[in-house]
């Protein structure tokens, strides 16, 4: 099975071609530049290098968020369109699970907690464990302040490994906590690999309705949140109609 996997949910961009769990080609850029400019050329180059034609692809695997709203939309739009237009399978994988997989397989006794900076002291985070040869989500993905996250994790039975970019602010927030409880993964573990993504995607059942597939933003927009507050119970099924 020929898999094309891609992630643009945060600063890094990673694309891989994987066949039967074997890596054929992978490119990861960590330029924090416009993913819209780089994603398709990287896909094009890798495919040409591997002499793969688009119509030979069997499955698209995409990191579906959380992360930068614009970033996840670039990869998800590409993946959705590619799968829909080629009529092939598509799988969406949590962008947090993708990072967790970098350390979870070799640390089955730890609670792996990947996080992305969501600004203003907040993070997108979730908890994962490697059990029964699978990466399982054991703490729901959430948008939470880093401090609250640490307090919640303190209650957990397992030791925790944090996987993410520890800014100075986060570092100072972490200081009062027991350092034997919290480990920090090396920076190399915070970089997403599309090869890893393809491996995770290979285990999942494909999305049934590609048209309805959307990123996992983990947050409603500010406008929407305010509107909901003012109009409780008024949300419609769909606000979009064909004319």
């Amino acid at each position, binding site marked *: 099975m020929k898999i094309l996997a891609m992630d643009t949910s945060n600063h890094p961009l990673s694309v891989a071609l994987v066949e039967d769990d074997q890596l054929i080609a992978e490119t990861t850029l960590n330029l924090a530049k416009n993913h819209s400019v780089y*994603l398709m050329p990287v896909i094009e180059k890798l495919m040409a290098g591997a002499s793969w034609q688009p119509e030979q692809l069997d499955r698209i695997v995409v990191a579906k968020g959380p992360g930068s709203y614009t970033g996840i*939309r670039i990869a998800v739009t590409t993946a959705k*369109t590619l799968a829909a237009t080629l009529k092939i399978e598509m799988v969406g994988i949590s962008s947090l699970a993708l990072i967790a997989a970098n350390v979870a397989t070799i640390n089955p006794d730890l609670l792996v907690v990947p996080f992305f900076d969501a600004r203003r002291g907040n993070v997108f985070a979730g908890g994962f464990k490697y059990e029964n040869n699978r990466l399982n989500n054991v703490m729901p993905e959430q948008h939470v302040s880093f401090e609250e996250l640490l307090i919640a994790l303190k209650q957990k039975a397992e030791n925790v490994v944090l996987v993410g970019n520890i800014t100075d602010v986060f570092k100072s927030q972490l200081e009062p906590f027991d350092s034997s409880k919290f480990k920090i993964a090396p920076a190399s573990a915070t970089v997403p690999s599309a090869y890893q993504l393809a491996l995770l995607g290979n285990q999942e059942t494909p999305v049934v309705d590609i048209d309805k597939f959307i990123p996992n933003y983990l947050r409603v927009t500010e406008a929407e949140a305010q509107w909901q507050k003012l109009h409780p119970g008024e949300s419609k099924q769909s606000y979009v109609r064909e004319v």
Partner: protein
Amino acid sequence: MATRNLILAFETSCDETSIAVVEDGKTILSNIVATQIDSHKRFGGVVPEVASRHHIEQITRCLDEALTTAEVTYDDLTAVAVTYGPGLVGALLIGVTAAKTVAFAHHLPLIPVNHMAGHIYAGRFVSEFEFPQMALLVSGGHTELVYIKSENEFEILGETRDDAAGEAYDKIGRVLGVNYPAGKTIDTWAHEGNDTFEFPRAMEKDASYDFSFSGLKSAFINTVHNAEQRGVELNKQDLAASFQQSVVDVLAEKTDRALDRYPVKQLVLAGGVAANLGLRERIERDMQERHPDTKLIMAPIKLCGDNGAMVGAAGYVAYQHQQRAEMNLNADPGLSF
């Protein structure tokens, strides 16, 4: 296979997800338009992040429907065209990304299209184009007079210095308690009332072809607020008629002057606000009286708003002129002619 030119065109610059299949730049085989207007109505205007989220929900469904309705397959297509600006960056990105993906997946050339050229080419479904040509583009985001010397050669003669005409409608609509988007209601009221307030005609005496609607907007708001303070109720129909008369006068007068200075074979009236009946009637009358030798092409009302078909028509011309984009094409929210 006969040489049919079939262009698959994407348009997602604002709050409509639209994909069309256009044959030879002038026949619409399909034109799927999914509008988000009911969503943005809740907020009194288009919220960019909300718009982007709706686009990604709609994009592949519209794509499938565009091909199915047109009764064509990917093998039949000649090229993929896409609006890459101007517009909301997050919204544009969905169309640009999807269009690039389809072009890559099916080995098709990719044609970058300027949204404003798209609006002009809505007129191509009414008549053949002849050059030189002038276009008056009026929409929620833009008010422009464009001189088109020859096919695919656009030059802006004048544009708005502040609000676009459509924006001005929405802002005064709010003052009158009309929900976003206000254009249609104001247009209807205007036909029921009279220009009794005589609001200023902004920049009528200005030598440039630029537009400005902020003075008019302020005069309107002051009039309404003063009346409110005095406890006087003003006639909404007359207010609407007075406002619309002022907007239409400015648009018509500038266009008239531009046509005197740059004689052209055709005038194209297009853009969302070109669906305004007051504007259509006025330009039609002016053209008959003052420029009988210039043919007026009014974009069909159905194609005045944003749609993929107009992008397909403009894309056809760009394609003939060998305009191609690479896989690094990006959205350009501030794109200008």
